[in-house]
């Protein structure tokens, strides 16, 4: 088998047109990675500058009431991950700026897509675009007549007479063509690794290895299926047009239709009804019979009993701070309920979409690619959760300062000093652990493996049924 693969490779490399095309592709891939890296570098510079600028503003507050500071708030910017230079995922679509302030969990705004007219429906020129759309098409053109050509030239008969096994021959051809795609993939990874040598971590390397395996599997599935068609159809053109049809169906048609359908199966609320529901829960109480005024009264009684005094004016602390924090914590329940619902709908949509991989391996590849590149909705949602967790700590510190910083109830003129504001920590984004990503994309990996096995069986079946003489 190894000899056949070697022989197939030799004939591929002897093809001058393919050699030229390969050189072109390698240059294009290298340029793509260079551009991707350059963009990430510029984005990171801009991100760092904006982050530092906002932090300087915060640390420059000389004197301000803690509650005033909660309204003044701060902003968190969404950072780019290093691997998004390979696969940009949802980064152009999602917002970049998130306001962190008291009383409210804001949504991320100002996406890149909203800052200009439409450009590309398939995103930026990242390696993923070439690896997902263009290289598979190239593999398809390389594989579609591999068996038929042997049949028509009479070489197949000769090979069989010499004792060659047709199934092995078909597999060798599938592997040889897949290797061409894998070769381009490895060149991409190599260039990426060299360019980012200083920033590589074990996590990134594991992710890159996983990406390589997934893309290799997809290439194998595609070439095996093409060779199967090459065996089944007497007419090579029919084999090619069938595979072209499948490529169109898999990469352009189905992802769109399935994604739109899952959004209908698991419907998201409109923004107005979402906000309205939160406003109602916020004012009436989560269960609808615990209005804000009653909650205030209950808290007042509890605090007075705790300090063993009869009125708020006798308290040694500022009750307003406690009340605001209590309100925040009640708000947390409201945000958790509604934003939690949103996340759960997103999760259901994702799971349903992932099952689309049963009929379309491209969906599994695309999902897992942006997942392991850290540019999918899971990473985006995780970023939003981290910012919200930060917001809760941030506002609690301000409310605690208002309550226990030295003022008394009703004193809204109390100001915290610069040391206090400097002591409030800045937001630090934590990357999502690979184990979490792996669990989320296990189904995609599994489906790609199943596709690999299925197409292999199809090839075995096809070669058994093949009429040679």
């Amino acid at each position, binding site marked *: 088998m190894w000899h056949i693969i070697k022989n197939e490779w030799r004939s591929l490399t002897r093809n001058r047109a393919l050699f030229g095309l390969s050189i072109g592709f390698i240059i*294009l891939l290298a340029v793509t990675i260079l*551009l*991707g890296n350059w*963009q990430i570098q510029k*984005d990171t510079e801009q*991100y760092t500058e*904006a982050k530092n600028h906002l932090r300087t503003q915060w640390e420059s507050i000389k004197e301000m009431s803690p509650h005033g500071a909660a309204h003044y708030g701060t*902003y968190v910017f969404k950072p780019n991950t290093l691997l998004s230079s390979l696969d940009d*995922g*949802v980064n152009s*679509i999602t917002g970049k*700026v998130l*306001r962190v302030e008291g009383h409210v969990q804001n*949504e991320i*705004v*100002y996406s*890149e*897509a*909203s*800052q*200009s*007219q*439409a*450009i*590309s*429906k*398939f*995103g*930026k*020129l*990242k390696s993923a*675009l070439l690896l997902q*759309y*263009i290289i598979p*098409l190239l593999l398809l*053109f390389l594989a579609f007549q591999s068996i038929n050509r042997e049949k028509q030239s009479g070489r197949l008969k000769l090979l069989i007479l010499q004792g060659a096994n047709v199934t092995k021959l078909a597999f060798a051809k599938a592997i040889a063509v897949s290797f061409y795609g894998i070769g381009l993939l490895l060149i991409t990874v190599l260039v990426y690794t060299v360019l980012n040598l200083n920033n590589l971590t074990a996590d990134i390397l594991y992710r890159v290895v996983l990406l390589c395996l997934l893309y290799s599997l997809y290439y194998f599935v595609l070439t095996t299926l093409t060779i199967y068609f090459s065996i089944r159809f007497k007419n*090579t053109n*029919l084999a*090619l*047009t069938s595979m*072209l*049809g499948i490529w*169109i169906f898999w990469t*352009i*048609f189905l*992802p*769109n*239709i399935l*994604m*739109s359908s*899952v*959004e209908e199966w698991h419907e*998201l609320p*409109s*923004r*107005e009804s979402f906000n309205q529901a939160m406003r109602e829960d916020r004012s009436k109480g989560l269960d609808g019979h615990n209005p804000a005024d009653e909650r205030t009264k209950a808290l007042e009684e509890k605090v007075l009993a705790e300090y063993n005094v009869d009125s708020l004016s006798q308290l040694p602390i500022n009750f307003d701070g406690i009340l605001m924090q209590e309100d925040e914590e009640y708000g947390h329940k409201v945000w958790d309920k509604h934003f939690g619902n*949103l996340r759960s709908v997103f999760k259901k*949509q*994702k799971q349903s979409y992932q099952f689309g991989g049963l009929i379309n391996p491209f969906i599994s590849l695309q999902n897992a690619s942006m997942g392991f590149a850290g540019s999918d*909705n899971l990473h985006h949602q995780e970023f939003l959760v981290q910012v919200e967790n930060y917001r809760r700590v941030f506002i609690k510190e301000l409310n605690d300062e208002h309550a226990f910083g030295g003022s008394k109830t009703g004193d809204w003129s109390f100001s915290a000093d610069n040391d206090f504001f400097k002591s409030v920590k800045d937001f630090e984004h934590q990357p999502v652990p690979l184990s979490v990503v792996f669990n989320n994309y296990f189904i995609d990996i599994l489906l790609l493996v199943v596709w690999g096995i299925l197409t292999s069986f199809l090839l075995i079946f096809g070669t058994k049924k093949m009429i040679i003489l």
Partner: protein
Amino acid sequence: MKNLKLFLWEWKHFVRSPFKIIALGLFVLASVYGLHKGANLYHKQTAEIETIEQGAQESRQEALDNYYIPKIYSIEGKPWIDYQDPFWGIWFSTPYHYKRPSPAMVYSIGQSEQFGFYKRIIFRASPSDPDLAEEIANPERLQTGTLDFSFALLFLLPLVLLVLLYNLKSAESEQGFLTLIEVQMPARNRWLLIRVCFYVMLFLLVIIGLLFYGATLTNVFEITGQAFGQQLLFSTLYLLFWSVLYFFILRNGKSILGNTLKMSALFLVFAFIIPAAVHQTLSILKPANLMTDLIDVRDEKEALSKLSDSIFQEKLIAMYPQMANSPARQDSINTMDIQTSAYSAISNQLNKKAIQFIEEENREKNRFISSTFWFNPVSFFQNKFNTISETHYNDYQDYRNEIQTLIDRQIDTMNLDIWNGVKVDESKFREYYEMMVIE
């Protein structure tokens, strides 16, 4: 006569190739699906606008029924609210401004899912407020894109056309009939052109049928008949663009494989690589704005609150010179209201300044994209379809400009009314929300 015969003969070729029929059938199915997607979004946005407007009307009616018609201008338990005060009158007039979807949205959803389409206009607002965010949607779905009619046109049309044309001439050449055909039809190019024309006409008829079908879903003719004509014109031009490119490949090519390869490569270059490369270049030259200029306005506003009343008044009179002799200025009444409204006016100026800078940057981005249209035809047609369906960036920019105009109008009215000591009654209240309409 011979030409017509040839033209009709191609019909036989077409009906005898199931693969071509399936390809065209799939295109029709995808287009119908896309048209329904566009129509659904149009109906959804229209319904959402109606719901919001109904809520706003109810809230205004409540203010009229409970306070302005019975002339009760205070509210129990909230002594700070005075319904006769222009500040509160404007506050309770709850005007909204909408970007009403065009029925032509059925043809292209465009950028409509990246922008908000309703906004409450209040003197503290700005067109860059986060509440003008897009509807909640799965970002992965947005990234994959919606299969609307324009998607079918832009990306499926060239592929289906490829399937319809890929074996013209080359099949005859491979089977050895070409010389025989040349004997019967010496003008080989005309022979090929007529065959290509057959498929172009067939495709055009399909497109016209689809456009008519789409028009019935959202009443395109009743409201914007012009959009139909424009959509037809640019769809035809797009079809011709690909047909001409493919014709030259077919004319010069000899094998089916070679032609298919060249046609596919051309599709990949125009539909994927060029737009993606332009997108990537733009991201490097002009990265996404993190809106720090707008954020910085926060500090300037913070500084405003520390200004003394006299400086506030000076700034305000510089903006509204007619206020210099107003009763409020002379009597110094409603100082709180004056400060609040003046604060709104000054911070509105600061917002506008920052937004202007950001918008200029966006305009530069748009200019860059437009400058690539001569070699980036797919993006050109994509934006053209968006313009026709009023879902282009510029349509949302116009909407934001309208919001700004209304905010300015509201602030001006509030300031002048407060400074002139106007008392809000029923007719004034009605005036407050009636003035907030842009036809």
